[in-house]
């Protein structure tokens, strides 16, 4: 586990500066700054929508388990890993609390 793991209750929010659209149900984005394209996929796109305003991993998981058939523990693991990736790419801002 890396030291900069996002805490379960820590708040995450979308970074600004991306053009966002959908292609066949999948969320695609373009960084205005560096011209990089991202495909977040379908569920990743849903996670993206859920962090439009600051939300915790727990908030996101609570919502996803009502929308998809998945165990909370497994969901939390996947959401955390996904958000770590978004963080590494600078796609989200992570708060301290």
């Amino acid at each position, binding site marked *: 586990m890396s030291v900069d793991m996002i805490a379960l209750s820590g708040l995450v929010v979308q970074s600004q500066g991306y*053009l966002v659209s959908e292609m066949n149900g999948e969320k695609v984005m373009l960084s205005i700054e560096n011209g990089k394209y991202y495909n977040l996929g379908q569920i990743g796109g849903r996670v993206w929508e859920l962090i439009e305003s600051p939300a915790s991993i727990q908030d996101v998981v609570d919502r996803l388990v009502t929308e998809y058939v998945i165990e909370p523990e497994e969901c939390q693991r996947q959401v955390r890993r996904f958000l770590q990736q978004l963080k590494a790419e600078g796609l989200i801002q992570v708060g301290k609390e």
Partner: protein
Amino acid sequence: MVLPEGFEINGMQSVDVEIDLNPPQDNVRDSFETANFRVDNGRFLFHVPETAVYSVADGTHIAVTPYPGADEAKIRLFLLGTCMGVLLMQRGILPLHGSAVVIDGKVYAIVGESGAGKSTLAAAFARAGYPLMTDDVIAVALTDDAALVHPSYPQQKLWEESIEQLGLHDRDYSSIYQRVNKYAVPIRSRFCREALPLAGIVELVKSDAPEPSIQAYNRLEGLHALNVHTYRNSLLHLMNRQQWQFQSIARLASELPVYRLRRPADGFSAFDLVDQIIRLTNKREVVIS
């Protein structure tokens, strides 16, 4: 000023675009400090040194104020180019940079960088009997259930070399802009005048390979190609149209095939490329040929 590139549509009910030509002025550039583009109260203003200042508003109105003694062909070049591109964006019509041909009632857009051979290829299509939809700016209107290409003015800009390759003689055509070796070739007879559905996009690319080849892009690659070849894409930000443009090209790239057509840098035959594209339209799914 006369616009020889334009043509009249019989029975047209209303005027689509109004172009005002103001008297020449010496001080037209005064309102431009560093950049030659700006937006003022929703009007798009654009300055071409030694030529004119243009104002494009509401997707319907263009005003031109030339410099005294400015070259008329050059004034027209920007009027039919950048101004029309901006006007389309204001109307919510996506402008792509390239040529469009009609094959079996459907439109194929040929996009690519300057010098890729778009106009030459379009001219070859015209010679082979296929109607052209437009050259230079492809106007794509996205409706709920279709992407329609609207016809543009009936003219082709051709590089001098292409004219020679096609066996036309350059002295027969007037140069549209003295500093560029592009020529205006009227194509009235082979010009399609009705809006037709867009069926695919072909990006034409110069390559080192000896033979032409065509390949389907995946969706993100297609998205990128459409982004790069959006006409005057550097102005989208200024016009606050970036998000709209991205959504438009995402829709096109998810609904329509985008291909890359590589053509040899030298000694290529535009008619071979026509064959490649025609073969493509005859099969539903072609990846590599």
